[in-house]
């Protein structure tokens, strides 16, 4: 592992990157009801989304009882969805349904920036 200070010269050859790394585009139709907007994408990416949320739960489980933590997140964070400003709560409900993930876990993921600073 290189150590600071930085050891690599300025790159001049990185662009264009490999096409396989280019990110695809999803069209979000704002004219749809909030619960339906993300459904197709959430369904398509459900396995990856579940794996990522499981990674957070594993992390939480390394410091507290994982079963209790999941029960707490599923119940208490789900309640937050109705308190969040529109249309975000409904969009999260739509994602939870489409990806078959407990709503509380989707809410936790969406407020992670605020909590992560802890």
């Amino acid at each position: 592992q290189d150590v600071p200070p930085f050891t690599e010269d300025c790159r001049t050859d990185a662009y264009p990157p490999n096409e396989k790394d280019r990110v695809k585009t999803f069209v979000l139709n704002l004219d749809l009801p909030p619960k339906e907007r993300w459904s197709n994408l959430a369904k398509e990416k459900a396995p990856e989304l579940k794996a990522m949320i499981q990674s957070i739960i594993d992390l939480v489980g390394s410091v507290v009882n994982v079963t209790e933590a999941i029960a707490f997140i599923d119940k208490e964070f789900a309640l937050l969805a109705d308190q969040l400003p529109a249309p975000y709560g409904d969009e999260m409900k739509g994602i939870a349904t489409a990806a078959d993930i407990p709503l509380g876990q989707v809410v936790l993921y969406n407020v992670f920036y605020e909590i992560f600073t802890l």
Partner: protein
Amino acid sequence: CTSIIAEAPNGTLYHARNLDFGLFLGWDTENDKWALTEKLRPLIINVDYQSGGKTVARAVHFTGYIGVLTGVKPGVLTLSMNERFQLDGGYVGFIKWLLGDHSGKWMGFFLRETLVSSASYEAAKSSIMTEELLAPAYFILGGNSSGQGCVITRSRETMDNLEELKKTESGWFILQTNYDNWKTPPFFDDRRTPATKCMNKMTKEKAGLAGIYNVLSTKPVMNLLTTYTALMQVNSGYLETYIRDCPQPCFPW
């Protein structure tokens, strides 16, 4: 994270960023990578916000995360957010919100509102400078005209600093990592010095998305936490995003 706004000699503005996330959130011992970072990469997606069949904004999302951290409103503005570490951090705002004080705004939702709804660079700037937030952050905002670029350093309730593109040392680019830009970055995480060096080496004459991508690909500007590099150009509303995976040997942050 590292965000850069650069202005070409003809006045065209380019905005690009590396999004780094997952520090200390688990380590994958098999692959020598941050565990959560690795799980986030397959979720990255560009989202084209459309209303009435027309694009109103473009943003980079992690699937399932409905807030915005990087985006462009065609013809109007570009926006990115870098995390800011403060003792009075987002968890304080989160607890206050749970206790019933809903005056602060959630970061991702606030950025999405700003991106989709702002009519101008100045309106977005004013909103970012004054709105109460749940967490501190650095906002990197670009407009559609020469000289329109700034970094707004925010605490939860107040603005701590405003750095304008025109008033930077170079006068043609503005660069922000995860530390207050009026202080020296910590020796253990100095991405500002190499990024600044590479921008200066590139020169204003060669300013463009390709050149900035090269800067953002230089270690340790790119590191093991880097999930994606996004490239934006406001006038065309262009957004191009690439998943990043820093080859070893690579800095852990």
